[in-house]
């Protein structure tokens, strides 16, 4: 599952890799070896997968990858820091002035980080590859996967009303209706009940005050009761009982990060913060059966999404 799906994708990657190899060969021997510190927030499996894939992807390049799991940023000479996870990102940005590529961090988390810290080191080169999918991709996914459903419900907590307009626009672009409901002091359930009553699907927005390990079971139960499927944002959501989700694996993110490093090797510039390029579609077939919803196969959804993307662009 962690492998990229789709032969086209694989073909493209191969082409890109060949191009890169050719480019580095052409630049020649005078090119200096780039010292990269890969700082992992944790030692867990996803981080290890990320690290392994990252190292593999850069093996052919003139890049020396130094992997650390540490609370303190090494002062050893390195030309670029790649952080995995929010914790190491905070660390790297606050403790060093060398360029930092932040990965596996939600967009909101990165924004908060740069807003707080970047002011101090304005000269520092900081960029990111977000963990979460772009909203448009999510909406495309819903449209592709559940074309008959028109109303997308979202819950938001009081502090996040500002993003709502953007969300509404994206939704409207696909001729869908956004049903947004703020979670008030009365508790989660009334808001949930209300949004479910008016929605065809409930889209999870990354907000831990609403979607957390304690609430998710009850949210899912409620959505089942209303026969409203929940669209998750990661693999655990699907496992917990969400109907489906699109997300990027650590390997996919690592490959993308490796590309960014390669680009830095050539240009000494980091690409601007970007969403994951590759993603996976996961469907809980049991929930599909339970809710009596028929979803197309993953590949079919992906094709539909791509065609949508072309249409829109």
């Amino acid at each position, binding site marked *: 599952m962690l492998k990229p799906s789709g032969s086209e994708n694989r073909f493209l990657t191969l082409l890109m890799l060949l191009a890169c190899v050719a480019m580095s060969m052409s630049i020649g021997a005078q090119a200096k070896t780039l010292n990269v510190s890969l700082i992992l927030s944790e030692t867990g499996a996803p981080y290890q997968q990320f690290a392994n894939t990252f190292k593999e992807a850069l093996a052919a390049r003139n890049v020396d990858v130094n992997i650390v799991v540490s609370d303190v940023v090494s002062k050893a000479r390195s030309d670029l820091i790649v952080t995995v996870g929010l914790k190491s990102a905070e660390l790297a940005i606050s403790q060093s002035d060398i360029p930092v590529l932040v990965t596996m961090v939600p967009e909101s988390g990165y924004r908060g980080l740069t807003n707080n810290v970047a002011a101090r080191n304005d000269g520092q080169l900081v960029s990111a590859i977000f963990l979460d999918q772009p909203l448009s991709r999510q909406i495309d996914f819903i449209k592709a996967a559940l074309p008959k459903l028109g109303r997308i419900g979202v819950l938001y907590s009081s502090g996040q009303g500002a993003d709502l307009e953007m969300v509404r626009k994206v939704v409207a672009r696909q001729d869908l209706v956004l049903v947004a409901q703020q979670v008030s002091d009365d508790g989660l359930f009334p808001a949930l*009940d209300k949004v479910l009553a008016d929605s065809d699907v409930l889209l999870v927005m990354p907000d831990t005050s609403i979607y957390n*390990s304690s609430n998710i079971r009850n949210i899912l139960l409620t959505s089942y009761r209303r026969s409203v499927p929940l669209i998750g944002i990661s693999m*655990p959501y699907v496992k917990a009982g969400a109907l489906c989700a699109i997300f990027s694996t650590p390997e996919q993110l690592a490959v993308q990060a490796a590309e960014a490093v390669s680009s830095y090797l050539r240009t000494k510039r980091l690409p601007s913060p970007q969403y994951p390029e590759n993603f996976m579609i996961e469907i809980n077939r049991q929930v599909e059966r339970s809710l009596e919803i028929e979803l197309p196969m993953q590949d079919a959804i992906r094709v539909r999404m791509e065609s949508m993307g072309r249409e829109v662009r």
Partner: protein
Amino acid sequence: MNKYSIRKQVALLTMTPLLVMAVCLEAFFLHDSFSVMDHDLMERGKLISRQLASSAEYGVFSNNRGFLQNLATYTLQQPDVRGVIILDSGVGFFVEVGEFSGVPKKPAPEIASVQTREDQSRIVQFKDILEAVNLQEPASLDRESLRLFQPIVAAQVALDEQGTLSEANQIGEVIVEMSLEGTNGRKQRMLWVTVGSTVLFLIFPMSLIFLGSRSIVTPIRRLSDVVEALGNGDLDARAPVAQNIIELETLSKGLNDMADKLQKANMTLQQRMDQAMNIAAIAFESHEGMMIVGSDCRIMRVNKAFTRMTGYTQEEAIGQNPHMLNSGRHDADFFREMWETINETGVWHGEIWNRRKDGEVYPAMVNITAVSRDVPERACYIATYTDITHKKVAEEEIKNLAFNDALTQLPNRRVLIDRLNQTMAVSKRTKHYSALMFIDLDNFKPLNDKYGHEVGDLLLVEVAKRLVCCVREVDTVARFGGDEFVVMLSELNIKKEESIFHAEIVAEKIRAILAEPYLLEIRKNGKVSTTLEYRCTSSIGVRMFLGHQSNADEVIKRADLAMYRAKREGSNSVRFCEMD
């Protein structure tokens, strides 16, 4: 001190350790069982509350009162569950079913709109329970109930690849009250069953012991019965010797030997007693009349001689007072003295005049002996009577012979002298003169010689009769010897002349009456053959006396002398002896 039979003792000795053992085992078993029951209840309660809490999670999350109510009601149907409360920690949402000890029963269901306010007041009522059970003290046990607290925690589902879980979020709580009634009932049942089975278990060995102890107890009881029978006087009783217990056999033999000896001794004693009784009976039936009087003065027994003597049969006499024999001849002093003597010395001996049944009075020689004087209630008196009527008559005869003349029945010379002395003693005090006349028949001897003594005696008897007729009662006529008579006139007068005059008249009267002819019947072979007329005069000498002027002999001698003078001077005359 309490007394028990051997059987009970044996049962007690055997049963006591058995009982102690049974009670100890029972206590251990009951304690163990009760702890298991309590533990079971607690575990069941925990399970129920855990299950309820987990089931209630979504209901609390979704604010679904109906669902929770159903859930609680369902839980209430579990055995021993008495009350269920489900609380939402957020809004204090409250579901309550069943009842809780110490909390008034919930009023009738209210309208939904006032539910929340009602909840709040109800929560105040439940304050104690809610404080008693909490996360720190999830169980509280009192006399009636067991209360269990269980937080309702949202089930955790990891949402990242790492499996990170947020902190457990308590969204409510469940309080379950378990009634101890069922457990206590089961405990009680178990207690009764255990006690009952123990009693049954004890009854079995107890009956065995009772039956078994018979082999010891029965021979001992038999021995005991024999001893009791012996004690009650049944000396024929014997203990069975064949015993299965050596000691008892020895005991039986010893007892039987003892009984044999006792019986032998008793027989000897009985023989002796019989003999003594026989003797006593024979002695009692002697010729002497015998009467036994009890301490109550009732006649207890009399013999045949008594019946012969008194005329009262045994039946008539027994139970009567001895006073029935009273002749009335003895005064009260006599009997008082008699009783005093008896009480002092134990015996009394003397003559008593008694009265026979036919009223005849007779003299009896009586011997009274008191028996068992020391023990008043057993005291009795044995009286023996000898009829002395004949003896009395004989005595009278002897007395007559001694003091009276056998022929004329007049006092003899000895009596005369005695009376003369008495009269002299009296006259000394009274100063009255008395007179003594000496009378001699003038021609008695020829009659005696011619017709014999018998005819002479007839004359003497006639003379005596005529003399007695001439004098007063107080005067004395005595036969002095042969044909000599003495007449003593006592207490004549204080004056001498008067006295002499009086004596002279009497003397003349005597001389005249004696001079009268005598008709003497001469008998032959007991029949009157001839009547002889005979004339016989007398010579009389008189001597007056006063006090102790002279002694008796002197007086008689002087009278005699005067008589001789009269005889000398012609017979048939009276002569006075001059006083000095």
